[in-house]
């Protein structure tokens, strides 16, 4: 058979049945779009977590409340109430390797200035938090130990807040309100620069943890204690000492498990990356199922199509088509159908990822790798599910086929 005629004949046949082609391809389109979206969001989430962990600073140990969970996954925990402000203070005062410890409390609140308001993340931290994070002050000052002691109504803000609430004007000395509580702005943080996800890091309000605990979140326990260790060599011993000290402070008997988790940022990063990797695979395989279902749809339609076009097949055989020509024709038709679905799915998936990312504020990564894989998979789906119908078509007897009504 004339080779350049094969894709032509396939496209022609698909065009003759536009509606059916579209509906059949829809199964593949949705499957592929689901894979692309899931992988995009999954990888974005993974990258964000890595980015967040990398931003933590150097020689940082994180102490989370609650026991280590399965697979070491405890990032974003903080639901248990086992870590107190006094724990943090004790860590800093009693362990020589620890040079800073900041009990953290987070909440998401609206910050109001005049008639402007902005939804942001509010962190209660200790005065040495910026040292832990290796973050500088651009103007004004960081709150000090005294502010923490007095639960002073002061705050230090990131660049995003300055832009959104003050439109770039100098906010130092101005007062903003959070849940009706007036906070005097005393400092502006250095811009952290564009992170992988844009300027998310600069969208932050810092206040003394005492103020955060008592006045904003209403909590009495730390969600995490950020600990900075003197140097890298001391990391291991520091972790052991932290564990011992906290066990003693919490009055744990030797047979009892830790009611807290000590992790270095590398461990946190590894766990988080693993988590997001597992999530990505999980989501991708769910999406893969829909691709499989789409493939079954293709097979179904191709079988119907072969039955319906029995006379056409008979005619082609009569005028000189060989069995393999007919096989190839239907196989290519199915592959072209799947590839069209694949391309449509990628476009839909990219659009969906973009929309979800911008509305839900989730980071997303477009993976060329995933697109290539998905296109190959959809071609493979076309071959796999198109083969049986095509084979059936190629086995038809021309006399029988021509006689069929």
């Amino acid at each position: 058979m004339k080779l350049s005629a094969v894709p032509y004949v396939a496209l022609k046949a698909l065009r003759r049945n536009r509606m059916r082609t579209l509906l059949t391809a829809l199964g593949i389109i949705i499957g592929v779009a689901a894979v692309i979206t899931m992988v995009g969001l999954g990888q974005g989430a993974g990258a964000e977590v890595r980015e967040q962990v990398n931003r933590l600073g150097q020689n940082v140990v994180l102490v989370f409340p609650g026991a280590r969970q399965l697979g070491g996954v405890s990032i974003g925990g903080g639901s248990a109430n086992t870590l107190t402000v006094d724990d943090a203070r004790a860590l800093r005062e009693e362990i020589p390797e620890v040079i800073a410890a900041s009990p953290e409390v987070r909440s998401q609140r609206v910050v109001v200035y005049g008639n402007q308001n902005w939804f942001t993340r509010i962190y209660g931290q200790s005065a040495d938090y910026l040292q832990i994070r290796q973050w500088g002050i651009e103007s004004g000052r960081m709150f000090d130990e005294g502010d923490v002691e007095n639960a002073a109504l002061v705050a230090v803000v990131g660049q995003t807040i300055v832009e959104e609430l003050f439109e770039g004007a100098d906010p130092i000395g101005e007062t903003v309100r959070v849940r009706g509580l007036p906070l005097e702005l005393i400092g502006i943080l250095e811009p952290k620069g564009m992170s992988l996800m844009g300027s998310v890091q600069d969208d932050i309000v810092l206040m003394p943890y005492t103020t955060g605990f008592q006045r904003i979140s209403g909590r009495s326990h730390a969600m995490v204690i950020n600990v900075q260790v003197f140097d890298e060599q001391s990391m291991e011993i520091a972790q052991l000492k932290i564990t011992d000290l906290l066990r003693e402070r919490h009055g744990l008997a030797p047979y009892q498990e830790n009611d807290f988790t000590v992790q270095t940022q590398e461990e946190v990063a590894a766990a988080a990356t693993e988590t997001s990797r597992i999530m990505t695979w999980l989501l991708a395989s769910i999406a893969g199922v829909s691709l499989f279902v789409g493939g079954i749809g293709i097979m179904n339609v191709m079988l119907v199509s072969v039955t319906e076009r029995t006379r056409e097949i008979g005619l082609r055989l009569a005028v000189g088509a060989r069995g393999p020509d007919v096989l190839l024709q239907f196989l290519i038709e199915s592959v072209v159908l799947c590839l069209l679905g694949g391309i449509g799915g990628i476009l839909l998936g990219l659009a969906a990822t973009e929309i979800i990312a911008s509305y839900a504020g989730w980071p997303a990564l477009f993976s060329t790798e995933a697109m290539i894989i998905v296109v190959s998979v959809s071609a493979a789906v076309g071959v796999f599910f198109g083969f049986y119908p095509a084979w059936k078509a190629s086995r038809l007897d021309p006399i029988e086929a021509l006689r069929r009504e």
Partner: protein
Amino acid sequence: MISLKDITKSYRSGSLSVDALRGITMEIEEGEFTTIMGSSGSGKSTLMNILGCLDKPTEGSYLLNGEDVSKFKKEKLSQVRNRMIGFVFQNFHLLPRTTALENVELPLLYTEEKLSWKEIHKRAGEALDIVGLGDRKKHSPNELSGGQMQRVAIARALVTRPSVLLADEPTGNLDSRTSLEIMDIFQRLNREGLTILMVSHEPDIARFSKRITILRDGLIISDKPNTPRSSADAIAQWKDEAEIMSEETA
């Protein structure tokens, strides 16, 4: 050109065996216009399928242009059909929603010859010109009349320049006037040297051919030359319904 020798064909279903052809021997020379007649069950369809290389005889030999095609494999028979045989069917078998030109091009897509698309378009166009449909190239079958559809089918049969045109009840789905037009085309093609083999059960149609072979129960019972009726005369004498009705009342 075609030589059948002791062709038999039996169909087996379970322990039952039905003999559709019980020993057919016939010669068809180049340039003939033969009609095979017979009632249903006489074996004429079976014979036609064997002549068209769509089916193989159980026994006997079939020489087509000197080659014994009765021994050929399936794939090779496809090429024989493509190269040497043009089919015209009772119900046209045109691809729906496909233009006349593309329908005619179909056999050229499966030919062993290496043809460029340009050559394919040109040859299909020429074939449509032969049947007088040069101005209908872009029409799809549902925009054509029955007679026009059959002419497209004839063009499709001619496009590979076959040795023989096999027509299976070519006028079976057409009215009498259109049937005459198809016979006119056949006679013209035959005058130009094309060998035509036609199956028909209508004596009126068979009369246009130069030889009539009659089958009964899988055997040839009559095989005679025929003085063909001229299609031009038939068309000239043709009366439409109104004329016939008025004659009857007069």
